[in-house]
């Protein structure tokens, strides 16, 4: 009988490692040649190895934070010109004559790069020299649920793999103790839920593993009462030995995957608490992120966890935070949301940079679309105004991973309605993300139901301007 340690090291030699999730993804169903799941080497030299996507659910208002429009302020109250009115796609506004609405927030140029950020985002303003802004991102669907899906999967309906799954499919995972694609949520969850980090038709090991946003961050991590310590270890060892025996009898490769699962699960029982234990973080770090109580779930804590995940080799970390959907009372709710997120978002970039992790990590900040340059008046009398959804142009920012720091890309027209230059459709964004990771979005394909699928479907142009 071999000891637990030798058993685990034996199995992990053979089973863990870079290609593990890809190779072992197919369960007993087989039916697909194993090679399909093999992790692929990048198509060319990558700029980044990891991704952190800070998905701002509900569509943040770019006109109040990142895309100043003095002309819009001047024309406050004017009707939206007919040329725009003819083609605008509102989600909620029913007004026949919607009126332009400027921003009450002061904008200023920041950093050496002189990029514009409003007073709502002072911490982000402090790191603009690390950021590349794209003001002309473009979505299609004005519905949150489908907008999210479009941004997360490149497809406006359910069923397709998410970006994180595609990345894992392409590059595999480098973490032996944690899943390669982890999801953190705060505030309101995405409307289309797990579909935002689902594997779709890709193998299930490529799905995002969500941390619980309340209660225990990972379910069933704790050994049940009475089995702590040796009992659990001896049980897991016996499970794997008996499984190995069955594997030798049935030759089923699915059992190898099961053994690897128990192996990783057992390691997660010790690695995940360590991951989630923030007591080793310095006061200064916690302060930088704005974490008052490390025991309390928050966006700030998730940002810190994101860094810890990247440190531990997790390939793709996605944060979802909501809700930025300010149809009404925007001047009260928007500052509150900025307050909740600005400091931590900026701290994450700074923290990654000072630990030497930023160069390898593509950081993405943005929502499923943006908000409109006209006022949305509430149905309820007396309720303050807000902004409706807007898909034609909105702002996202990027950092790390070869991104051109301090650059600003794309111009919108005088009222911030439409892109004048550089349209970056969601498909272009996706093509560019993959490019940053060394993958050609046209070659990262997966055959399903008789056809080759891509994250970008039949679209997408790589926008090399994003990179330095």
């Amino acid at each position, binding site marked *: 009988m071999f000891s637990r340690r030798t058993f685990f090291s034996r199995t992990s030699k053979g089973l863990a490692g870079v290609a593990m999730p890809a190779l072992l993804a197919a369960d007993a169903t087989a039916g697909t040649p194993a090679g399909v799941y093999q992790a692929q080497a990048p198509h060319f030299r990558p700029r980044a190895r990891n991704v952190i996507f800070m998905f701002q659910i509900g569509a943040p208002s770019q006109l109040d934070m990142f895309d100043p429009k003095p002309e819009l302020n001047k024309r406050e109250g004017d009707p939206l010109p007919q040329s725009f009115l003819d083609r605008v796609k509102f989600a909620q506004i029913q007004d026949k004559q919607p009126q332009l609405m400027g921003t009450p927030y002061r904008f200023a140029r920041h950093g050496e790069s002189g990029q514009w950020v409003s007073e709502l985002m002072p911490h982000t303003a402090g790191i603009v020299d690390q950021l590349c802004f794209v003001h002309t991102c473009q979505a299609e669907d004005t519905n949150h649920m489908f907008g999210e899906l479009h941004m997360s999967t490149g497809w406006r309906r359910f069923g397709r793999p998410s970006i994180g799954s595609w990345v894992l499919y392409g590059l595999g995972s480098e973490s032996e103790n944690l899943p390669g694609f982890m999801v953190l*949520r705060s505030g309101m969850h995405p409307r289309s839920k797990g579909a935002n980090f689902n594997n779709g038709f890709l193998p*299930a090991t490529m799905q995002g593993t969500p941390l619980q946003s309340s209660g225990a961050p990972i379910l069933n991590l704790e050994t049940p009462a009475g089995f702590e310590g040796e009992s659990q270890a001896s049980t897991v060892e016996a499970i794997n030995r008996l499984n190995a025996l069955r594997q030798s009898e049935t*030759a089923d490769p699915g059992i190898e995957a099961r053994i690897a699962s128990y192996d990783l699960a057992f390691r997660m029982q010790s690695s995940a608490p360590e991951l989630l234990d923030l007591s080793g973080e310095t006061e200064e770090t916690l302060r930088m992120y704005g974490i008052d109580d490390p025991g309390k779930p928050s966006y700030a804590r998730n940002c810190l966890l994101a860094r810890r995940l990247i440190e531990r080799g997790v390939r793709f970390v996605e944060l979802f935070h909501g809700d930025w959907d300010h149809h009404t009372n925007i001047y009260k709710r928007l500052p509150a949301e900025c307050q909740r997120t600005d400091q931590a978002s900026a701290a994450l970039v700074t923290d990654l940079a000072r630990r030497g992790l930023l160069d390898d990590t593509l950081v993405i900040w943005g929502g499923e679309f943006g908000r409109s340059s006209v006022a949305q008046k509430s149905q309820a009398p007396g309720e303050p105004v807000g902004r409706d959804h807007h898909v034609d142009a909105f702002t996202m920012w990027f950092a790390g991973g070869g991104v051109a720091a301090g650059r600003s890309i794309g111009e919108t027209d005088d009222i911030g309605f439409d892109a004048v230059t550089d349209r970056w459709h969601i498909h272009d964004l996706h093509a560019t993300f993959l490019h940053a990771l060394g993958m050609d979005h046209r070659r990262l394909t997966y055959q399903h139901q008789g056809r080759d699928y891509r994250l970008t479907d039949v679209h997408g142009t790589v926008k090399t301007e994003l990179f330095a």
Partner: protein
Amino acid sequence: MFTHLRSLPLVLLVLLAGTPLAHAVDKVDFELEVLPLLRAHCFRCHGREKQEAGLRLDRREAALAGGENGPVMIAGKPAESMLVERIRSTDDSTRMPIESRQLRREEISVLERWIAAGMPGLRDVDDTGEHWAFQPIQAPPVPTTPKTSWPRNSIDAFVWYQLSLQELEPAPRADKGVLVRRLFLDLVGIPPTLEQLARYLEDPAPNAYEQLVDRLLGSPHFGERWGRHWLDVARYADSAGYEADIPRRIWHYRDWVIRSFNQDKPLDQFVIEQLGGDLLGGATNETRVATGFHCNAMKDGGVRHESVFDRVNTTGAVFMGLTFECGQCHDHKTDPLTQKEYYQLYAFFNTGVITPLDLDDEDIKKQRADANARVAAVDARLAQIEKEIEAGIDQLVAARRENREGLSEGILALFDIPADERSLTDLKQLVTFFRLEHAEHKQLLESKPELLAGLPEADTTLTLTDHPQPTHLFVRGDHTQPGEQVQSGAPAFLHPLTWEKEKRPHPNRADLGRWIVDRENPLFARVTANRFWMRLFGIPIVEPENDFGVQTPQPRHHQLLDELAHRLQQSNSIKQFVRLLVTSATYQQSSDFTYRRGIPDGLFLGQQRLRLEAEILRDNALAASGLLENRVGGESVFPYQPEGILAFRATPATWTESRGADRYRRGMYTHIWRLTPHPMFTLFDGPGMTTSCTRRSRSNVAVQALGLLNDPTFVEAAQAMGARLIDEVPSDEERIDRLFLLCLGRAPNEQEQQMVSELHARQQEIFQGDKNLATAAVGEYLSAGADPARQAAWVAVSRTIMNLDEFITRE
């Protein structure tokens, strides 16, 4: 008592074949092997439409004559045949098929062997280019299988024939113990009890297996197992979905499904009732409940058209195996479905309105009506009193002013307002004040709740009722841009839809149902047979199982599929069809992967090991440990789930944990909040329930292992199992046997016995060293007079066995 089982050979090779398969089957079947290749790769350029380089391969004479450069096939000489040279070419510019993937080695080999054999079977192919799945279903001739007694029914004859062409053999019959557990898990979704196991294993009758099949088909749990498959495609849930995800009461539909499977409702009726049970001549509550099928679409007030889209798309995927949804915005790009035809289908469902149906019996209905009438009478009297007060308000105020005691400042101020200056609000407040002082009013008001006391909440379920309204095509699928008006109707490329035109100008949902189950429909029986096959074999014969459109290539075994479809049509019986499948030798093959090695996926027609579905996984643990409460049907229940699952919902939802036996009901009765389903359901690939799910995936990730190891439900099952072993079995050695039998349906082999003994000894040592651990490990299941440490060791051993891959797998 069961130790004798160990003497059963572990691998029971019941290869019934009289003669082993001859290895030299050098015959190549033109129809089965060659033609599909020619169709897929050659006819497009060398067929009816085009004859590149003068070559035409779909006509015998032309194919033999060759093209501009002479003959392409020389009988008996593949190496000298241009066809072979071109498909083998390494030069992309000359290799055939041009601008396409290279033929696989085995495909090339088929063509070479065929040419070597002198191109037997070459014929004029009457290829109209029509898609295989749209051709009528005809019973194919059953192949004769002279050299074997392996086949048990026609399925096997087709499978044998196919295998023999590839020089392959079927896998041996699975071990009896594996078979019995396979049958139980596949047909009823719970493992056999010791008695059930023994009854089969000790039954000497030659048809013991068939008898077991019949017992299981007659079990009330057959409807649960197969009903749950159907609920996947029906996207059943106990809430409406979208952000609001409001609760809905529709579990009667779930129970209707279970009943229908148990009663073996004729398949055609099963379909017709679900689509149009409210519109049948003899409509009853039972047939109306069936229309819950399309009430299951997600629903949100603002986007009703999305629900109707979903009804159309689900109908396409489930019954026809077609991706209708492409027609929402434009004509289908590949299938012959126009956008207009999509909206003709839409018209069927557009008139269906979700309506609660009260299922209370007449007695209760009458009681409720009576009570409501009494309440109405009281309300009328109350209103009358208030009117009287209002009419005499001045006198009342004048009289009450005399006795001001106990009156608030506010009331006094009201009294002081002169009658002609009173606002409506003032008046209302005065009336309220005086009615509170009115003795009869007070008494009547207080009596109201009692009038309804004792009456149960109305027992409703959601059904469809028909409310005619016009349907317009949506331009580019945009519901804000209605186009041409359309009437209900079926797509023209399939068989015609007939209905009683004298009764209604346009067909209704029930007519659509009849059209679907029509024998002329080439799709319904094929799609259904294929999906049933998938449930029992893991992979379907046609991939993908929900798209039989033009894009989808020939089935792995077209004739087998048509045989199945034909048999399904003939019997019109789900139970008979399942019986046909599970009594085949094909079904009874061993699932050991060894027998699969080397067989190309496209040819594999054997068994495989399948991880149990989310609900069955839990049912299995509860059943083995004796915790399962096996009652069929009823309202959904709320077993344990971890905290925090329902947090952050747009609209709050409750999860009041069920008490007593309801905590141990089968997983299919667990309440389904569509937006936030039970985490174990999600963890083990339960369907998303946003749209129809015709096939679940089977993932294998680490967080699943965490669930099986540490989730309180599974720990409790292990605790109950530990107690069971202590209570029911006298010695430690027999306990291991018993545990294996209860969990795996077989006794342990020697190695296992030894490993588990060692584990047991180790665990007992651990628990004897720490009594507190032992007490916690046993939980609330300490047997009378038992030593906690000894029992805890058995809980730990049970936990181990209940985490084995074999335990969560149907082999």
